């Protein structure tokens, strides 16, 4: 039994049909990359898993238990954490307050020291307002918020978007460390190269359908697939 299973999930936004019979699985300790051009439905998939959107039909199972239709706060307490594309840093709260609020309902939260050890930059800025952080620092903060909850599954939505190459390098390193530590991650990215550098398996979405499932190696071996679904 996989840690997370999606079976024939259809999601609507109003009555706009975004996901068509999407099925996928994520095993414990894997890193799964979800690729596709934008509009393909990658963010919608993550939001459906997190409960921000309720699936119109199909089932989603975490540890074998169905979670479709549950509100996000319940799913968060089951160990899933979404790091959204728009980051959602609370601009009026300090870095430390952002971390503390994330830790509030976690059953076994990390200590602040452990977080600061992993993200020294955040330690330096612990008293700064969230709104004054740079893009890269905000991204670190949102990942740190997921970690402080000791989330079992982390859903990363376009973590590298809009960031300078050096920061992306930093974040990829952190993501690889987390993967190496055995955390389960689903990463949605348009930056295919970065995502494939630490993923175990890959799904590709196109126009709301799953069109490919494989590994980074098999994808590299199939450049036409890459080009037709991801390229131009």
């Amino acid at each position, binding site marked *: 039994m996989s840690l997370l299973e999606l079976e024939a999930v259809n999601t609507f936004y109003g009555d*706009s049909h975004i996901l068509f019979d999407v099925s996928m699985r994520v095993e414990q300790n894997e890193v799964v990359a979800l690729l596709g051009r934008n*509009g393909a439905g990658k963010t919608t998939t993550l939001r459906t898993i997190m409960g921000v959107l309720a699936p119109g039909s199909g089932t989603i199972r975490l540890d074998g238990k169905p979670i479709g239709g549950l509100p996000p706060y319940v799913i968060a307490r089951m160990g899933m954490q979404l790091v959204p594309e728009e980051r959602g840093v609370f601009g009026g709260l300090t870095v430390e307050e952002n971390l503390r609020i994330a830790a509030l309902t976690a059953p076994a939260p990390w200590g602040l020291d452990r977080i600061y050890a992993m993200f020294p930059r955040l330690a330096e800025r612990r008293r700064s307002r969230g709104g004054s952080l740079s893009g890269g620092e905000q991204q670190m903060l949102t990942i740190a918020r997921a970690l402080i909850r000791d989330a079992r599954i982390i859903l990363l939505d376009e973590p590298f978007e809009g960031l300078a*190459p050096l920061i992306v390098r930093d974040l990829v*390193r952190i993501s690889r460390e987390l993967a190496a530590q055995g955390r389960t991650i689903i990463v949605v990215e*348009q*930056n295919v190269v970065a995502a494939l*550098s630490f993923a175990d398996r890959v799904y590709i979405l196109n*126009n*709301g359908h799953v069109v490919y499932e494989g590994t980074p190696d098999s994808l590299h071996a199939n450049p036409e697939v890459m080009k037709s679904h991801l390229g*131009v």
Partner: protein
Amino acid sequence: MRSVVPELVLAAALLATPFVFIHLGASYDLMGRVLDWGILGIGFDLLFGWTGLLSFGQAAFFGTGGFVSAYLLVYHVIGSVWLALAVGTIAAGVFGLIVGWLAVRRIGIYFAMITLAFGQMSFFLENSPLSAYTGGENGIPGVPVPRIGFGSTAYAITTGLPMYWMLAAMFLACFILARRITQSPFGVILRAIKENTARAAMLGHAVPRYKLATFVIAALFAGLAGGLLGVLQSFMPPDAFALDTSGQLVVQTVIGGVGTLIGPTVGAAVWLWLRDNLQLIPEIGALWKLVLGIVFVVLVIVLRRGICGEIREIWRRRAHASAPPPAPVIAAEVLPLAAPLVRARQDAPALETHGLAKHYGGLRAVDGVSFAIRSNSIHAVIGPNGAGKSTLFKMLLDEVRPTEGDVLLHGSRITGLGATRTAQLGIGKSNQLNHLFLDLTVRENLRIAALARRRGPFRLDVLRPADSIAEVERQIDTVLATMDLGERANVPAHILAYGEKRRLEIGMALATGPHVLLLDEPLAGMSPAERTTTRALIRDIGRDRTLVIVEHDMDAVFELAERITVLYEGSLLAEGSPEEIQRNQAVQDAYLGGLREHEPA
């Protein structure tokens, strides 16, 4: 053909009322007051029921009209009551113009609070600083009754039944006028503004002007009602300005039915009748207002349509169930759509941008983008996420003001004009998410769009029927045929299937008769089958006009586009024919992994 049944029914009811209700314990004076509230309510219903603006300050205009009229009469400035009423009404309208000009810039709670503030200001102004004119807490007593005729044979309208007839006549006149307003193109646009303000503006209607006009109209009705109150009571009371008056108006309208014109009157009847009659019952005398308050809360939670609203809904459902199928839409040939209002230079590109940029603080969403789109061509804009496509699109219409650079339509600069104005000049856009007027029928949706360029951004055409402009109706028929929505023409938009809604969305942009049509992800959320049909549709539409499309569906892009522009991180990465783009290595890299620099160490 416009039905005059409601007007006739009302006239009959007004004729019958004194004879019927006098036996139910209502005095002529009470009936007169109900009608006075009704006139105040008609204006308020146009403002709230039709345009969606909740004002808590109508008392300001009610009081202004009343006190101006009363002052002019009691201090013998004007002899004729009719003239004084007219002056009072106009004074209220002028005050409404001032307050409205300030208030309609804001929406929702802010609008409510601004009107509240002015209502209170007026109340306190009446109470003290202006008390020399208004009599302060005492009001103005001794308002004379109106006279019909001249000189010694003039007939004085005394209190009691004659006064009732006068008010009934005025009420009927106000109702007829208001109904014409609601059935005019002006009225249709008010409904559009209430349903979806942003879309109405983007179609080319100058929304602030419509809101201001309605605010003034409501103030005029209020002013007339205020003047009539003074005449009715022979006394102008200071509590005409009170918050309680504005509040009572709101409660009465909700109970009677918002958006029915007659609702406020029914609500007033309920309020006043309950007040006068419950008070006679000793144990629960003082509870009448509590009962009303509870009814009000329950209505807001549950029913929301009020008494008249519910009756109308039942009537409508019955009518709809037995309605004959709609007549087939005949559009013999596809008529060319509206003539350009911008004089096109012969060889100028339909749309071009020069160094267009948008910066948000340090973030450069779009940077230095220049390209040109040939007339009558289909042009696609693509790019990975964060490329700046939607920002660029919004700048093409001037929905978003560029930080730098210009957009030219047929060689004329349109930057800085705003989306309403550019829509009037001939650019239309269909949105990625459906922005429809869901409670209106398909035909009504299209009419709002088609009226935009035919009538210009604003017109006070309050007296003609909305469907009386032949060219507009032909336009609607053409679009219905093109978008294959003919059979659904009289169906409310919220009932349509998703694919149909999408077609309506595109149809609305088409109905404005644009020369340049921007389509933002037209295929979003569609099933494979729907995509095929829509692609054919887009090709059809593209024959007579210039299309600019943003899409992620690459198959569609390469099938439809004659030329493709690729954006990457806000800048122009490549431009050319579909074949050129497919062969372009930089474009492939951009899509697949952000070029070399993003490769991890």
